[in-house]
């Protein structure tokens, strides 16, 4: 028994120690800092109670703005990505689509590129390519992209959809191929074809996959930072700034580390709530056979 206890801790140690050191301990220090006026400069840190939280929630339009913007972004992005990914997955797994391996790879490719590079690639396309389209075809819609809030929003949606659709498509393909052939055949014999089959058979059976997919996608949509920084940097006038970037700027541009930490804690609470609501709702919709 002694031996196994020693073994338990020895094997656990490397992972657990680094996890506690970089993730758990800073987390608790962070909760403490959110109640202080920490500014990163001097070492004197004063306890200020809930002052940071009150300030953020009542007197920080920048944060509220970033919050609303992120929320809008998350809703549009998650719906768009999942609908497109599911459509692509259904299309590619169809027995009539040739070269499915090749197309899988093609749609997945952008996912391998990191957010910073993606943002820069699209910055070129939006500012240079789009304005060229606008000039050539006289389409004002394509002019001055990323210089207004509207186009900045659309730009961010396009970039992250481009990145995530392929990934979510792979996950849906995996879900679709795990649905047993027999069930689908039985459904066809019973007269469920086309859209009916999709709605009453395929989609309900796909719900576990949808749960996993939505869960990852929603969490990811809220945490976006890299694309935001490299595509718009929050501009014009911080109107396309998302929560992560707002926290980052509060800390490193305005040196208000206490407030930034409080924002991060609020962010955590929101992400946690959304995750639980989401898990609860989708679990309820799952069926088993």
């Amino acid at each position, binding site marked *: 028994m002694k031996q196994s206890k020693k073994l338990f801790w020895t094997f656990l140690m490397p992972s657990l120690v680094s996890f506690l050191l970089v993730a758990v301990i800073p987390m608790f220090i962070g909760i403490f800092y959110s109640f202080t006026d920490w500014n990163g400069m001097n070492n004197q840190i004063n306890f200020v109670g809930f002052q940071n939280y009150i300030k953020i929630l009542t007197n920080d339009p920048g944060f509220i703005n970033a919050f609303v913007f992120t929320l809008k972004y998350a809703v549009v992005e998650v719906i768009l990505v999942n609908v497109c990914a599911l459509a692509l997955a259904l299309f590619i797994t169809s027995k009539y689509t040739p070269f499915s391996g090749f197309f899988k790879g*093609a749609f997945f490719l952008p996912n391998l590129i990191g957010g910073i590079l993606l943002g820069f690639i699209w910055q070129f396309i939006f500012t240079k390519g789009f304005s060229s389209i606008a000039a050539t075809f006289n389409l004002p819609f394509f002019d001055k992209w990323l210089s207004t809030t509207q186009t900045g929003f659309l730009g961010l949606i396009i970039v992250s959809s481009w990145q995530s659709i392929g990934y979510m498509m792979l996950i849906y393909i995996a879900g679709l191929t795990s649905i047993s052939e027999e069930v689908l055949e039985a459904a066809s014999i019973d007269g469920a074809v086309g859209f009916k089959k999709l709605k009453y058979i395929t989609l309900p059976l796909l719900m576990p996959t949808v749960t996993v997919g939505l869960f990852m996608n929603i969490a990811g949509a809220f945490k976006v930072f890299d694309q935001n920084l490299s595509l718009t940097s929050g501009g014009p006038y911080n109107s396309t700034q998302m929560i992560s970037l707002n926290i980052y700027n509060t800390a490193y541009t305005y040196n208000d580390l206490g407030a930034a930490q409080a924002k991060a804690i609020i962010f955590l609470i929101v992400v946690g709530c959304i995750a639980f609501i989401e898990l609860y709702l989708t679990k309820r919709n799952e069926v088993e056979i």
Partner: protein
Amino acid sequence: MSKKTVKRIIHGSIAFILAIIFLSPFYVLVTNSFKTPKGIFKDIFGLPGEYFTLQNYKNAFIELDFVKTFFNSSLITIVGTALIITTSCMAAWVLARNKTKTSKRIYLLFSIYILVPFQCVMLPLVKFMGQLNMMNVWGLIIMYIGFGSSMAVMFFHGYIKSIPISLEESAVIDGCKPWKIFFKIIFPLCRPMTFTIAILDFMWLWNDFLLPSLVINTPNTLTIPLKMYYFFGKYTKKWELATAALVITIIPTMVFFAFSQKHIIKGITSGAIK
């Protein structure tokens, strides 16, 4: 032609058109990286033609200090991924086999942490690690082990539970030491899961920006995303250089994908469906 063939042709052409639209940004990027500034100004969507030049690549390659940058990224990604996997698999094994309350609580801690946004720990982490003198490449790798363990332990834990314990028990009877049991039996059996986690972590570490930007600041240790970010700050609007630099930095990813596409896709899909 049978009805089936017609359907195949229609499906094939739709897929092909969609793929072309989807990949068109790459076309724009690559063609413009071969143009002179005047060529980019005159025509974005055409081929380089008379404005063809290789100078952009030469300049961008030097400016990015690409050999060194590539080496930095590779070192951090490979060592980081290998260590996340080994330490997490070790931890997951004992956590899965030990049924005590402590074990369950530790596992819960690992799995619940997935929800925590990085911003929550960012500021204290930087301060804390600075005090421990860990603001360097090795400190960064330790941070990756810590942050990566959350997901990796969860995945391995689920996988190891499906491996029958009788295998280990008979190895113990045969006098096999725990280390040997782990490295000769458990770790090899976890291979499919190792692959999945390796791919996810590889992509994460290779592309990560925020954490390294806070931890490694010396010019000699910059990774590809960091170098690219500073490069853009310096050469805003010099698009002929920027596009060439982007192509150079994307090439390793593309080569990697070309050689391991099957494994990558399999790894990702098997990770999602447990």
